[in-house]
């Protein structure tokens, strides 16, 4: 029997703007999680920010590389939310792969692919410095007053090892 992949866990299709999307009560029965965010935000220069289990401590760090169509850039940073990549007011798709999300013996790694054909192609590697199993994921848009735009779809999938 082939191993199931991309088992749908939850999805939301926005009929209006929304400043925060929260996936909660995530079961611990999968190996990895995948989130697909398809749509746009309400701001021209905005990123998706992520928090696990409502943790607002300085426990998030990331490294990234990207191209804007003429120049390249790379860097690293840290903060009280994970920076999960560019999500402007233009059609975008972002893929988030959270590895070993229910493990209690390691920090949590997320691979991010951020794609907006009119702005950037970017890849991130993220770390949440906690050995706690992930049971909830909060996604917001950077910048005061910014939101996910109407029509955006965010879907969470579980992957069995």
């Amino acid at each position, binding site marked *: 029997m082939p191993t199931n*992949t*991309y*088992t*749908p*866990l*939850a*999805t*939301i299709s926005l009929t209006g703007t929304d400043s925060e*999307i*929260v*996936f*909660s*009560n*995530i*079961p611990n029965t999968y190996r990895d999680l995948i989130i*697909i965010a*398809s749509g746009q935000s309400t701001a021209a220069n905005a990123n998706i920010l992520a928090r696990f289990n409502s943790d607002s401590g300085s426990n998030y760090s990331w490294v990234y*590389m*990207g*191209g*804007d*169509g*003429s*120049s*390249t850039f790379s860097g690293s940073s840290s903060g009280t939310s994970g920076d999960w990549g560019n999500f402007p007011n233009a*059609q*975008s*798709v972002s*893929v988030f792969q959270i590895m070993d999300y229910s493990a209690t013996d390691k920090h949590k790694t997320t691979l991010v*692919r*951020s*794609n*907006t*054909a*009119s*702005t*950037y*192609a*970017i*890849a991130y590697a993220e770390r949440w410095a906690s050995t706690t199993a992930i049971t909830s994921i909060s996604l917001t848009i950077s910048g005061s007053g910014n939101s996910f735009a109407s*029509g955006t*779809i*965010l*879907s*969470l*999938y*579980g992957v069995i090892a």
Partner: protein
Amino acid sequence: MQIIEHQELSAAQASITFSSIPQTFTDLLIVTSLRDSGSTNGWTNAYIRPNGLSTNLSTRVLYGFSSTVGSFSDTFIYHETVGGGSSANTFSNSSIYIANYTASAAKSISVDTSTANNGGNAINAIVAGLWNSTAAITSLSLVAEVGNFVQYSSATLYGITKGSDGTTVVS
């Protein structure tokens, strides 16, 4: 994720097409392994054509090969195949993710693409693509840029369906 169709070429041909794609999934994933029959030692492009079309496409790319890194934009979806002049038996390896392929909105496309070749003449790239059309994708073609796709080139089409497990909550 569910496999929709797998194609592996028994002989060289100019393109690989998935037609009559079911409209019952949410997203599509295509995994490709390709080699071009042309004489290029390195890489060539394998054009991605939603519904067989080459219009309303755009791409923004970050690439690296040898000690070179760069970025460009263009009016096709960047996706690589190994050129026929490269090391024998080497094929490209790429994944193409198309979100909400049946929606009446522009289609965002994420591509991770890489080639292999002795001597380091190989490329790796991440691609942000867009098909700016409100039409649902009912077919998808991969078209060789230089020659034909050689025997044993392959592509697999998967469908991914969003939904709920009845336990996880989203708000």
